[in-house]
């Protein structure tokens, strides 16, 4: 890989040294972050511009592990390897330059990106899709330094240590989860995780307990989850909301305690999902306000820089949830807009959609979804649907099967 990168950088230097060569006349789009938003944007830009654009994707990881379906891994329904996706096809079949490096700086005046390796790359348009980072101090007693004892497991590829801790729980032990405040990535994610941990414990440690400490009054698909928990895991899951102290939690990683309402309780596993903000590079680039990057609803163009687009979890766009589906949908609108700006291709009206499936127990799938349209202020919800309580098992199984189809669909849409 080092070799590939050197080759790429060598050709870049050659291009810069000889400004008259043809390749250099192609406008360059740099995409930072090869996840749901960034990989989709790179693929659509390269595929649809048919070689007219120089598409560069900056991503430190060799393999992208999806957060989506990582809960199914905890439940035993997926292998960890099945969550991993390589960038090889984006390079080989679509001609995208994949630079495995971390972006550390953006000079908006000079229109350049600086990488951890020290190299600097010029761009015509820049796309940021860095996902999330955590807000320091949002859970008292927790910091990134404590993540070995109390994992967040809320970024791609980080779920294996949590799984190992759950598997090592003593019989009848307690799995605690500190749920995040809004807004955060994947609104049903913590509750699907509790369901999948319950599936695992029911089979392997049936007297164990799950304790959810939640700063929110209500949560996504709440009626569906609570119905499912009573049906499949009676008595196993307790949720403590803000009225009972769920919003003022302290954790003690050294002694594996959680302090609720002044009372310390010893737990066996503690999954802390802290409050979130746009991935660091968005604030480094100076395109955030109050933790998130505001964007124009018709294009995903930053409201603070006319050459920078922001996608996915990092944005403040309006009504869309922070999901992989949303990031993928937004990426296609941005790609169409960028091609219009750089190559004059037609710009079609922006349209967005989202569907989030969750698995409550084996073959018990539910979904929520909506369509969205741009207004001058925000991306606004147009129409919505949600699974109903009391649905029969056949419908729930069909819904789960849809989610399997979707996983193949979206990962193919991202990585080719």
């Amino acid at each position, binding site marked *: 890989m080092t070799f590939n990168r050197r080759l790429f950088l060598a050709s870049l230097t050659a291009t810069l040294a000889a400004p008259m060569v043809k390749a250099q006349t192609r406008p360059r789009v740099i995409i930072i972050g090869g996840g749901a938003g960034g990989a989709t944007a790179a693929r*659509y830009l390269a595929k649809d511009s048919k070689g007219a654009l120089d598409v560069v994707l900056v991503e430190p990881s060799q393999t992208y592990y999806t957060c989506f379906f990582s809960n199914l891994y905890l439940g035993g329904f997926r292998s960890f390897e099945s969550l991993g996706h390589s960038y090889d096809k984006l390079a080989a079949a679509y001609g995208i330059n994949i630079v495995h490096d971390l972006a550390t700086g953006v000079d908006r005046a000079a229109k350049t990106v600086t990488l951890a390796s020290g190299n600097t790359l010029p761009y015509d348009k820049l796309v940021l899709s860095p996902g999330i980072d955590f807000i320091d101090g949002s859970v008292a007693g927790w910091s990134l330094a404590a993540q070995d004892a109390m994992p967040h497991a809320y970024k791609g590829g980080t779920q294996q240590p949590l799984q190992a801790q759950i598997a090592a729980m003593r019989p009848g032990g307690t799995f605690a989860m500190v749920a995040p405040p809004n807004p955060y990535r994947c609104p049903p994610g913590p509750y699907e995780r509790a369901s999948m941990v319950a599936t695992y414990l029911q089979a392997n440690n049936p007297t164990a307990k799950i304790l959810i400490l939640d700063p929110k009054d209500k949560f996504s698909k709440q009626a569906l989850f609570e119905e499912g928990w009573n049906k499949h895991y009676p008595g196993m899951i307790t949720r403590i909301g803000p009225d009972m102290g769920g919003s003022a939690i302290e954790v003690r990683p050294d002694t594996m305690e959680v302090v609720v309402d002044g009372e310390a309780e010893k737990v066996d596993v503690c999954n802390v999902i802290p409050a979130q903000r746009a991935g660091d590079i968005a604030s480094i680039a100076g395109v955030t306000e109050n933790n998130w990057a505001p964007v*124009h*609803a*018709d*294009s995903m163009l930053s*409201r603070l820089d006319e050459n920078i687009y922001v996608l996915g979890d990092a944005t403040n766009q309006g009504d869309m949830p922070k999901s992989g*589906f949303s990031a*993928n*949908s937004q990426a*296609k609108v941005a790609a*169409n807009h960028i091609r219009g700006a750089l190559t004059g291709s*037609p*710009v*079609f*009206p*922006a*349209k967005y*959609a989202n*569907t989030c499936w969750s698995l409550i127990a084996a073959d018990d799938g539910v*979904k929520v*979804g*909506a*369509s969205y349209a*741009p207004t*001058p202020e925000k991306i606004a919800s*147009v*129409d*919505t*649907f949600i699974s109903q309580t009391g649905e029969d098992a056949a419908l729930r199984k069909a819904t789960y*099967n*849809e*989610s*399997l*189809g*979707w996983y*193949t*669909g*979206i990962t*193919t*849409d991202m990585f080719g």
Partner: protein
Amino acid sequence: MGRGAYLLGTLAAALSTGAAAQTLGDPAYGEYLSGECTTCHLAAGTSNGIPAITHWPAADFVAALQGYKSKTRPNPIMQMIAGRLSDDEIAALAAYYESIEN
């Protein structure tokens, strides 16, 4: 020019471009619209828990989408998606998916 005016301007321009393309059942507009479908329906057409929709005769494709739009075909996802497609957009998608190469 204020931001609102700018936005409305680009929106109107975008809408008119789209409208010009879509009246013809234009596969290029269909290709753009199909971006909404490929998140679930594989462009390569294999079926995997969500049915394949490539290479259907355009008339059958239109009938299926109109069925979802009028809610005579069940499935809340497809009812929502088809619900906001215009007849011209459905025609453009049908033309694109009938002729898709893979």
